[in-house]
């Protein structure tokens, strides 16, 4: 009875109430998005490198080292001797070790020099690398010289510069820029394009360490700016050089996978006790998580803003319901005349506010999730945040529940007003 009346009454005022619903929906969207992006951004960040148990580099600041090697942010870290790669490969407990060499760029995109084994072991957010097109570069050998100049593109690089398998690409030396020297003599051929991962690898260009080395043959020996003279020297040098000689002398980092993850601290101690050069071994997930903690102030501020906005919108719900109430005094008087009690008027208003808030929250939830579904590709490619639809964190559900409870509590204000009015008006309410 009360339900039917409440629904019919609310439906007759639907145009006004739809704004209340909208206001609740928008704040629910905001709160949900903040909670979910917080969760997903954190996860995307701390799992930007997964599948790698330790990242080894010259001793220094672990966070600086990771920011540079994983995201190519900040100052380049010092390189270390390439000979450590073999040492690490033979270290007990180590399953594999893969080199990483940074420094050059293709336009904006950093070049990662690594080995072909990299594609099998590197993971982003627990997901193995998948090729959208083509294949990994082959391991350069005497029989397969051309593999030296094979190159794989990250998803964003390929889509941004519209490159396809088979394209010829010239990389630039150092940090790039208009005036940077170009590796004109050593063009690479695209052999594969990776599928989007949400990680920094999407914005990277991958070549073999031999290819990385080949670009720099003769560089530093010959004076720069000799133009074609120097170029020819590099060509000649390369032509005479066996592939085996194209091994780098230094590396930016070595990625290590363990046979048994529980022995990670033992292996780390072993690596850091290397006597030839001071090294450090960093647990990427832990260190990235620590870095994220630094951002938690900004994150919490965002959350606070979201909660305050939703509180404000719930207050406006109460205000709108109160404003609409005076138009309903006549309705209350009629219902009182047929024998409904003031308490029933209170329930009527309470019920309506609760239903309006609930509908608003549901609309907000659905709109936010479908928005996320539509935006997920864009978020992954531009922000590197991979969001998952319906992966709403528990705390977001709790926030929604709190919003509903707050709405019902706030509904007490207009409900109490309705109660007082129907007592004082009795059957003689003014026609508003």
């Amino acid at each position, binding site marked *: 009875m009360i339900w039917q009346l409440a629904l019919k009454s609310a439906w*007759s005022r639907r145009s006004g109430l739809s704004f209340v619903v909208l206001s609740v929906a928008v704040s629910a969207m905001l709160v949900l998005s903040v909670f979910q992006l917080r969760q997903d951004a954190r996860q995307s960040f701390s799992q930007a490198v997964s599948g790698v148990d330790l990242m080894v580099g010259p001793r220094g600041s672990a966070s600086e080292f990771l920011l540079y090697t994983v995201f190519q942010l900040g100052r380049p870290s010092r390189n270390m001797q390439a000979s450590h790669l073999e040492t690490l490969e033979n270290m007990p407990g180590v399953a594999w070790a893969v080199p990483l060499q940074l420094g050059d760029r293709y336009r904006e995109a950093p070049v990662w020099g690594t080995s072909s084994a990299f594609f099998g072991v590197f993971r982003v957010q627990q997901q193995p690398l998948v090729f959208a097109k083509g294949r990994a570069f082959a391991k350069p050998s005497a029989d397969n010289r051309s593999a030296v100049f094979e190159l794989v593109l990250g998803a964003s690089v390929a889509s941004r510069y519209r490159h396809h398998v088979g394209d010829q690409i010239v990389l630039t030396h150092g940090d790039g820029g208009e005036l940077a020297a170009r590796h004109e003599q050593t063009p690479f051929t695209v052999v594969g394009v990776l599928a989007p991962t949400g990680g920094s690898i999407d914005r990277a260009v991958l070549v073999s360490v031999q290819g990385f080395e080949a670009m720099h043959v003769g560089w530093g020996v010959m004076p720069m700016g000799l133009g074609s003279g120097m170029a020819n020297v590099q060509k000649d040098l390369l032509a005479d050089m066996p592939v085996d000689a194209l091994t780098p002398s230094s590396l930016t980092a070595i990625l290590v996978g363990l046979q048994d993850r529980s022995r990670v601290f033992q292996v780390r101690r072993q690596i850091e006790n290397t006597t030839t050069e001071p090294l450090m071994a960093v647990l990427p997930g832990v260190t990235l998580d620590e870095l994220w903690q630094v951002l938690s102030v900004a994150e919490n501020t965002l959350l606070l803003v979201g909660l305050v906005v939703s509180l404000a919108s719930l207050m406006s719900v109460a205000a709108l319901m109160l404003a609409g109430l005076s138009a309903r005094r006549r309705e209350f008087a009629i219902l009182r005349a047929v*024998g409904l009690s003031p308490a029933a008027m209170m329930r009527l208003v309470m019920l309506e506010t609760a239903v309006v808030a609930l509908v608003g929250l549901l609309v907000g939830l659905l709109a936010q999730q479908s928005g996320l579904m539509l935006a997920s590709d864009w978020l992954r490619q531009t922000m590197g945040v991979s969001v998952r639809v319906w992966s709403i964190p528990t705390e977001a559900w709790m926030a929604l529940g709190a919003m509903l409870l707050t709405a019902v509590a706030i509904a007490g204000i207009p409900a109490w007003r309705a109660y007082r009015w129907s007592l004082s008006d009795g*059957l003689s309410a003014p026609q508003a």
Partner: protein
Amino acid sequence: MVISLSQLVYAWPGQSPLLRIDALNLEAGQSLFVGGPSGSGKSSLLSLLSGVVLPTAGDCQVLGQSMAALSPVARDRLRADAMGIVFQQFNLLPYLSMMDNVLLPVKVSHRRHAQSCDRHGHPVAQARGLFERLGLDALPPSTPVHQLSVGQQQRVAVARAFMGSPALVIADEPTSALDDDNRDAFLELLLGLANAGSTSVVMVSHDRRLADRFDQQLWLVGPRPLAEKIPS
């Protein structure tokens, strides 16, 4: 006895008494006209009778029950079960159809639902009968009430008041929004229905010309002088 008032005094809180009635008795099936200028306490009397307010002093009995002795919930219940109320205007819920407005009392009160079923088979059948009686049967029952004229709205309100055969129908200036012809026809219908169901009627009006059609008249004069009762 449907209504029995004795030594009744009513005053708004902190004000001098607005209403004094020494004795008033209304038997089942009888009709009472309450007249007097504005501010003489006519509406307050209806609030007392319907149990929305309680007397400041004295006794107000409706259907043998002393209002002051009943809880607020019991008074609401009594109103739902035994009273039909017609206002001056704006009697209907705008979001319900004509039929749904009329069926409200039988939805609120089980007793009126049972009475309607006993006498007419089904509340909808009673509502149809009332519409016919009131000349509303040409309109589809699902008509939204805002499409009705003021006169039609008042007649729908009368149908609602008589729905489920209450013992008492209270009407507060029900004719003031109507023109003369409509007013007479309206009164005819109201009293006719009351007679047919032996329902008591209390009607408040400032229009003295209507008073003769009622069994009893009560003239209220306002705060100071005592109200006088003129037996017919």
